[in-house]
């Protein structure tokens, strides 16, 4: 009995790790690149966006998994979208209530979480087929993976573009203005993606993210 629970917990742990590294939405699957570029001009906005995404992913995964028996396969995507928009509204309104300044900066992008491919992917691929507890861990894994990617990208973009971190001026200069523009977002994302691919190939014998691309 104890053995079994141990085995289960390692399973959950690996579910979580898969979401963060092996199936990282941005660096490995190359989906949801729009927010990865739009909100990552500062470490602060990037992190807050990541937190919001973790929340929405987990809640959507739990909800979808809980009611999966009642969703007719033919209308599952609209139902998923309704669930996602419901939870995004929750995140949007709570952020507006409790983190007013950050909310003003993020503006539209919190509401745009509705359209993130990574969340719909998890609902369709995982939560609609598995029970609540694994779905919860899968949601946490993929959400944290997303947040991790946003933090990595926004770290370099803010440091190189503004010479600052978390809004605090560090190098007293603006070395590479281009990093603040969307172009810089693409360059930073591409270089980091290459770096994580290299780690995967070099240390884990993977094949890189080349074949796994989505939209």
């Amino acid at each position: 009995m104890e053995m079994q629970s141990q085995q289960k917990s390692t399973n959950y742990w690996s579910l979580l790790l898969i979401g963060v590294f092996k199936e990282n939405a941005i660096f490995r699957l190359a989906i949801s690149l729009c927010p990865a570029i739009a909100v990552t001009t500062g470490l602060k906005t990037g992190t807050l966006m990541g937190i919001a995404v973790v929340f929405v992913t987990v809640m959507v995964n739990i909800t979808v998994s809980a009611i999966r028996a009642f969703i007719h396969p033919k209308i599952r995507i609209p139902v998923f979208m309704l669930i996602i928009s419901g939870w995004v509204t929750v995140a949007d309104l709570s952020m507006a209530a409790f983190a007013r300044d950050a909310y003003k900066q993020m503006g539209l992008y919190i509401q745009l979480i509705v359209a993130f491919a990574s969340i719909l992917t998890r609902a369709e691929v995982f939560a609609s087929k598995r029970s609540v507890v694994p779905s919860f861990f899968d949601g946490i894994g993929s959400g944290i993976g997303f947040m991790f990617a946003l933090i990595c990208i926004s770290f370099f973009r803010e440091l190189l573009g503004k010479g600052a971190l978390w809004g605090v001026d560090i190098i007293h200069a603006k070395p590479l203005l281009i990093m603040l523009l969307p172009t810089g977002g693409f360059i930073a994302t591409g270089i980091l993606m290459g770096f994580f691919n290299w780690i995967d190939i070099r240390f884990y014998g993977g094949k890189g993210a080349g074949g796994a691309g989505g939209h």
Partner: protein
Amino acid sequence: MLRHRLNLKDGKIIRKIMEAGKENKLIVSVSPHIKSSESVDKIMWTVTATLLPTFVMGVYYFGPKAVIVTLLCIIGSLLSEYFVQKLAGKDISLKDGSAVLTGLLLGMNMPSTLPFYIPLLSSFVAVAITKQLFGGLGYNIFNPALMGRAFALITWPRAMTTWAEPIANFTGMDAKTTATPLGILKEQGLDKLLEVFGSKMHLYSELLLGHRAGSLGETSVIAILIGAAFLLLRGYITLRIPAAFLAAVAAGAWVFGGKQGIFTGDPLVHVLSGGLMLGAFYMATDYVTCPTTKKGQMLFGAGCGLLTILIRLKAGYPEGVMFSILIMNCFTPLIDRGFRTEVFGAKKKA
């Protein structure tokens, strides 16, 4: 057309094949069978050599700093090419001259008053990111040198638009800074430009000779034309893209450039100033990033010209040659599809 060309040469080819057949050396291979003595290396080094007059004029007007900026660009290009190819485990191809050419062109596109890191980083973007990451020579979508310059202009807007006044002597190391003719034209209009240069004829002659502020290699129209004439005579470039480019700019300037209404603009000022000559003859004609068909090339050139004049007259930048060529680079695959040539011997689709 194609059949005619084959008829001229197949006598020779058949004789060759028969000779080879006699010696039991019949080689069976896929086309093309007609080889020329041209090679990538030869073309690249020749184009580099034809840029020498332009480079000399740049040094003449902007002093030793022009040499430093150009050398830094070339060194940066060579280092980036070497490191990326080394990392990727490819053959090192520094000898083919393409990195040197990219560096030289990038240097020609920069003002002389830059801190050392700007040429180095821009040439890294040009060669490592724009060329090598897309697969190396022949696979890049965008013109590497222009991409390097676009990166520099966006990243260091102030440094990249601080133009030194042409001095034509080697004593004054720190020349005064001034605006380019196009900058004056944009901010203060043609009248101010005439005031600065005196008469209209003087303006034209100064633009032709290159005694004006600007990037190192763009100012002297005559030097660029000498190099370009050599390339045209050797058949390395054709007139299609540059002619369409210049004609479109001239037409656009004539029709929309005037203040008194349409058809009152001054086409010559627009054609002679800015980086148009350098762009039209050396950048837009880059083999890799321009269309391959004749009609496609003309459309490409005209598109570059129209975008250039649109940016010059209406957009925020005084000069638009760089952006227009980069934008048209995006359309090259589309243009190639649109003007696909008929495959020899293939049946027409009903």
